[in-house]
């Protein structure tokens, strides 16, 4: 795991601040004019696990996708691991190397074997020797419990297995931050647990995680803080116990009434 620190000039040593993500007054309009983010503020500390909840359409996906520049924004500032997000393409590339993402629809590369899904980016982007990456990829697949599937293709795996491959694929780039956008929402109920277990396992490491999910049990057990978003803004940030038992905001209470 030393590779990431040597290959990036933006190592943790260069950024002693405990803040991993800092978003200030972020506003986004979609090209059709829709005001999706309305001045969002949020900070995420190094190694922290933050769960974002909120009704559908409240801007959760839009917000976390700004962290790795999959979405742009028009006002405000976002700093990721000390690097300000701007239109500078080199900085965007630098940030994307440090930020992994796991999608609701897995988005595995169907034309590549599981192993090639994992090794593609480290070899192509980090220019690491293939043999070394293959070894690491096999170890990661073992860690997420699918070592035997390395040579299969994504289409041959169950949804839960695919999502675990997607997590392993993100980890293979040795990111400092992992973003999850509703990682279990597209899964059959019996497969949700196997994915959540992998995520819980990860949370014990020092990687920073931002997780959009509706899994209350996961949020209670794993999150350091829970964020509620509604109508394009953050409504409440609280520790899980406080959030689920005694939320401060009326909006949070209404949301919890709906999902609990």
């Amino acid at each position, binding site marked *: 795991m030393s590779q990431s620190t040597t290959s990036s000039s933006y190592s943790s040593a260069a950024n002693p601040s405990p803040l991993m993500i800092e978003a200030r007054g972020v506003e986004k309009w979609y090209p059709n004019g829709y005001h999706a983010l309305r001045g969002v503020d949020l900070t995420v500390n190094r190694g922290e696990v933050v769960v974002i909840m909120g009704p559908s359409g409240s801007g959760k996906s839009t917000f976390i996708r700004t962290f790795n520049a*999959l979405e742009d924004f028009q006002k405000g500032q976002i700093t990721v691991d000390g690097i300000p997000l701007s239109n500078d393409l080199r900085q965007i590339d630098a940030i994307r190397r440090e930020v992994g*993402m796991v*999608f609701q*629809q897995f988005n*595995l*590369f169907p034309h590549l074997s599981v192993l090639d899904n994992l090794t*593609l980016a480290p070899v*192509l982007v980090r220019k690491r020797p293939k043999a070394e990456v293959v070894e690491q990829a096999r170890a990661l697949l073992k860690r997420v419990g699918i070592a035997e599937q390395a040579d299969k293709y994504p289409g*041959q795996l169950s949804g839960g297995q695919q999502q675990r491959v997607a997590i392993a694929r993100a980890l293979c780039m040795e990111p400092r931050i992992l973003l999850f956008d509703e990682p279990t929402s597209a899964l059959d109920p019996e497969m949700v647990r196997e994915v959540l277990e992998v995520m819980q396992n990860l949370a014990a490491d020092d990687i920073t995680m931002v997780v959009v999910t509706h899994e209350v049990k996961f949020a209670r057990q794993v999150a350091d803080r829970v964020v509620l978003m509604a109508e394009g803004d953050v409504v409440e940030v609280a520790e899980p116990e406080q959030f689920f038992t005694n939320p401060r905001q009326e909006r949070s209470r209404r949301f919890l009434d709906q999902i609990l």
Partner: protein
Amino acid sequence: MNPLLRRLRQDLFATPADSLLSIALLAILASGSTAFLHWAFSRAQWAVIQANSTLFALGRYPIEQQWRLWLLTALLAAAAGIGWGMLRSHPRTDRSGRLWPANDRIAALLLLLSLALPWALGLALPIQLRWWALSGLLLLLRWLAGRFGPGLPPALKRLLPLGLPLLYLIGMLLIGGGLGLAPVPPSEWGGLLLTLLQASFAILLCFPLGVLLALGRRSDLPLLRWGSVIYIEFIRGAPLITLLFLGQNMLGFLLPGGMAPERVWRAAWVLTLFAAAYLAEAVRSGLAAVPRGQVEAARSLGLSLPQAFSTVVLPQALRVALPSMVGQFISLLQDTTLLSLIGLMELLGTARTVMANPAFLGKNAEVYLTLAVLFWCCCAALGLGSRALERRLDPAAVVRSG
């Protein structure tokens, strides 16, 4: 009851109306084919083909240089054998080890054709023997490639497709001369040789051009996007024959003095530019079939846009577009017949000169039928190759083969 009989009964005689229709159709089919066979074997006079076989094959290519084309054909047979063997061996390694795999109908058909055709055409014995040797070479290399191909180091396997352009360069050298070989100018190329040259030149070059046009059409740069759109729509709106005439007349003005290529090459470029527009549309539909999430996943892993396109999007898009691209290639091959209208001696042009020869007056049916069969063989080969490639590129094929 015999399953075949049951099947026939189900398919043809399920209801009285079905039976009636089936009987009528079978009667028409039977009378049509007996009439054809009668014509082909007793009335038709195939001497016109036998006497002109070299002309149909090569045009007026100098006799003393024809060994170069035999060498080229041997190279092509070798390449086809290797490619075929490699495609077969992946992902179905189970069938590749045998020299004569069970129920390999295509190879059997090829063998039969290559044995029977030179004989049926009444070619001279030495030439018959050469054809047999060539098909033997092809099948042997197919077996070797299937047997040992999968064991080759992956780096070497990735280099194999590069053999294709290399083969093309060698082929052009052998045909046209240079590097010590006596030059044979394009005006002396003809027949099947010229047809295949035109088609393969256009196929090889329209592919990269078509991909670039398709990407241009999706580009964020307005100039690039509109340029591509206008080009594609203009070409697709104009009949090829007008473009061919235009090319013969206009390239001379457009290119600086002396740069205008020889007539044969002008036609080849027009074909290429024409095919590229159609190919671009095929590639575009392939690109549209790749979900947005694929680029997002690639970008979130840190791949640059060109990297994401070349390793993630394009392979998937081309896989989707392959059948319609091959459809384009097949019609391109058939479109080469239009070149006869601008005076090139490709297959149809050669055929027309042969039919104009008083010695072979009235033998049009024999000539046209031969042409049709030749074209059909080429197109069938393209289609078979593409299906093999499709299977090879289909990750799910691994499941089916276990």
